[in-house]
């Protein structure tokens, strides 16, 4: 028989006292979205894959990346990286170098020959994609991995769209592009090159053969300047100039070039021309501070010896025997209400003359909407689509530069992904929709920065200017492995649990239980102090209301 406990000794465990009744709020594990993710055009799970890099799980990081974007090595080079502009860490010191980390993983995948996981079991439906640029390829990838039959029709002899014939090799080495495209094709996408879908009739006929169409033909028609006679041998449009150089053709233009335009395409034209040994001036309407190109592109162009004449406009060209005289005038440039709109007023008496041998206008491209006349409605300069990226013709979806003025590569990739999801739902309405991340984005104030010591960003270096002018080698160096790990360690992992156990150890009431994957709050004992929340380094827990 058990002895009755001695009345002299404390014998009851405090466990019988349920201090959870003291509480007015209880912590909740939420795994909230990070602000970088919200700003990312492909909604990449950045906090997750950056953490995987930090832990040395590069393959895992790549799988997380390619869930939303099959082009990490491309995006890691040329994405305009709005994620970095939203990064919480810039409120402590500097933004995390997300883009260079993405390149690190993308390059490793190519070097190691990693392949996508096998596609899902074959579906009955088939989808035709028209246009093999980033939007079309992204949609093809997302549909193929879901098991659909995908046939891609491309007008040109090679895939890639502007990635191939627009963006110069010194920013995107073509072997990188080839590698990432080949991986998509290897998933079983059927590719028909030199197979343009010329007009509305051809599109209608195509639609009869497929369950759905995705249209991503880009914006291929250059905007033109009325002051220029495009028939002259000394005028070449920027898009043609870049396409020719990218195709390895010799440049026929003279020695002194004037590039017209202040955007990214103009920078690419100017810098390409420098590499071809030309002397180059850029003539832009905008004053320096308002140039639409990224500041880094302008800075690098200046380093390469390109002259900028900003806040000025071409009025007329005089062709003399030994060159051109460009009549120009200073302008008063006013930005409009909406992005891309502006007004210019010539400043009287400010005329000046530029001497040159050739003029290369690079002032933007329009989508060719006339092709689809009578079949698809348009919405101003682009094809009209609804929230599901479906055009006015049911079953025909569109995206990329054709359907949007957000003209960036990762925007096109993101649109391709969203359309693929919509097409899958169109094919099978029972498909689950995309899972929305829960809760609102983690603000900087929810990050306990005591766990994140100050550490400046690791910027990958650039090729020296002299070497840049001799070749088309990539300007930006990659991050070395130790640099990538160090840079990844700077990420706060906003809203994502890193299983650090801080919440478990900082609870004075032993009210956090460790589970196999994650944690649980023991409501019997949690007093609701919030120490676990305060000492969480990532903002993955918050106090809920009771």
């Amino acid at each position, binding site marked *: 028989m058990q002895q009755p406990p001695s009345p002299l000794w*404390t*014998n009851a465990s405090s*466990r019988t006292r349920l201090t959870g009744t003291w509480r007015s709020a209880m912590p909740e594990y939420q795994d909230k979205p990070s602000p970088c993710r919200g700003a990312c055009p492909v909604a990449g799970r950045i906090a997750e894959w950056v953490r995987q890099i930090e832990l040395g799980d590069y393959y895992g990081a790549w799988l997380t990346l390619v869930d939303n974007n099959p082009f990490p090595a491309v995006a890691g080079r040329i994405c305009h990286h709005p994620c970095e502009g939203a990064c919480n860490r810039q409120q402590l010191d500097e933004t995390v170098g997300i883009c260079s980390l993405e390149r690190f993983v993308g390059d490793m995948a190519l070097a190691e020959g990693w392949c996508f996981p096998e596609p899902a079991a074959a579906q009955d439906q088939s989808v035709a994609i028209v246009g093999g640029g980033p939007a079309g390829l992204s949609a093809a990838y997302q549909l193929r991995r879901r098991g659909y039959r995908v046939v891609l029709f491309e007008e040109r002899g090679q895939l890639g769209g502007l990635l191939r014939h627009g963006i110069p090799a010194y920013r995107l080495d073509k072997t990188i592009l080839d590698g990432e495209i080949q991986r998509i094709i290897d998933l079983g996408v059927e590719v028909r090159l030199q197979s343009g879908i010329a007009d509305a009739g051809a599109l209608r006929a195509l639609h009869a053969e497929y369950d759905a169409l995705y249209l991503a033909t880009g914006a291929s028609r250059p905007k033109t300047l009325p002051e220029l006679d495009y028939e002259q041998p000394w005028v070449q449009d920027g898009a043609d100039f870049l396409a020719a150089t990218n195709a390895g053709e010799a440049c026929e233009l003279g020695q002194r070039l004037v590039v017209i335009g202040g955007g990214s395409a103009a920078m690419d034209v100017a810098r390409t021309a420098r590499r071809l040994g030309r002397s180059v001036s850029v003539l832009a309407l905008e004053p320096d501070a308002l140039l639409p190109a990224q500041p880094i592109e302008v800075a690098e162009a200046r380093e390469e010896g390109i002259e900028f004449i900003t806040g000025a406009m071409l009025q007329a060209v005089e062709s003399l025997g030994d060159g051109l005289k460009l009549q120009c005038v200073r302008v008063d440039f006013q930005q409009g209400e909406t992005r891309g709109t502006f007004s210019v007023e010539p400043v009287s008496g400010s005329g000046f003359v530029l001497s040159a041998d050739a003029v290369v206008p690079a002032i933007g491209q329009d989508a060719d909407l006339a092709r689809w006349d009578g079949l698809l409605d348009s919405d101003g300069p682009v094809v009209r689509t609804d929230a599901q990226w479906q055009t006015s013709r049911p079953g025909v979806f569109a995206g990329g530069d054709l359907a949007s003025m957000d003209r960036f590569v990762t925007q096109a990739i993101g649109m391709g992904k969203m359309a693929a999801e919509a097409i899958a739902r169109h094919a099978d309405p029972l498909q689950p929709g995309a899972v929305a991340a829960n809760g609102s984005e983690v603000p900087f104030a929810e990050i306990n920065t005591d*766990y994140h010591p100050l550490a400046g960003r690791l910027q990958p270096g650039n090729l020296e200017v002299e070497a840049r002018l001799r070749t088309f080698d990539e300007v930006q160096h990659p991050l070395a492995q130790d640099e990538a790990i160090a840079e990844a360690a700077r990420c706060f992992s906003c809203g994502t649990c890193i299983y650090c156990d801080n919440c478990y*150890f900082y609870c*004075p*009431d032993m009210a956090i239980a460790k589970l196999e994957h994650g944690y649980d709050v023991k409501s019997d004992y949690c007093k609701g*102090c919030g120490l676990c929340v305060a000492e969480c380094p990532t903002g993955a827990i918050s106090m809920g209301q009771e």
Partner: protein
Amino acid sequence: MELINYNDEELFQPGHVACAGCVEALSMRVILNTVGRDAVATVSPSCGAVICGAYPFSATKIPVFHTTLESGAASASGIKRALLSQGKPDTTVLCLAGDGGTYDIGLQALSSAAERNEDILYICFDNEGYMNTGGQKSSSTPLAAVTGSTPAGKTTRKKNLIEILAAHRIPLIATASPSHLNDMAAKVEKAKALRGTKVIIVLIPCLPGWGVADNAAVKTARLAVESGVFPLFEVEDGVHYTLNTEQRTQSVNSYLAQQGRYRHLSAEQVEQIQADVDAEWQRLLWCAAGR
């Protein structure tokens, strides 16, 4: 990020009645689990006594003997000697006390035990006042801090107990903070392996006593360490000083600003406290360099 890595064997149990967010309970958790099962504790009247449990409840998985406020170290010494005569030399005897029970009312017993170098591990939970009885000042209360018995702010400095203890040349005196749990566990581990009198002073920002938010005691303790108000260091054999944090990264004001008990301070007073901390920090550096 440095991960916390002591092993929690559940020697400290939930259901205790410490205030929500109390880092004395948090520190108790680290200390009991680091010392392990082969231990006996004494506890003087204090918040610690309440946390360990009032009869018939106990939050600890080791025996705890409640002593008078004067006699913590003497009682612990007696228990240690009894264990020795039972042939249990390896059982750790913990002596848990508040600052009132250490700096003031229990000082005589502690000094005597230290002079005899009794084999006990003495933990002072220093919340800088008599907090369990409603928040009166002790000789550990810092200059200018408001308590129930110093409503306009204390007019004298905090007693330097470490120097008093150092004069006894005991094997180890150390400071510890609930913001640095690995450091706390390492010091307990080290003290456990040494024979003789070991004293660890743990800074405990008291939520109601200091006017600190329920979720902010760890942060406040961290600021105390980072501002140099409460440096983490060790003194071996009364003479060898080792600083565990070699740099100050916060101003004293960032620490003071967390707390209601300093809300009334003028800019001059803050400057004076900063100057005191600077001078004490220089002295510590000097001590550490001379070892």
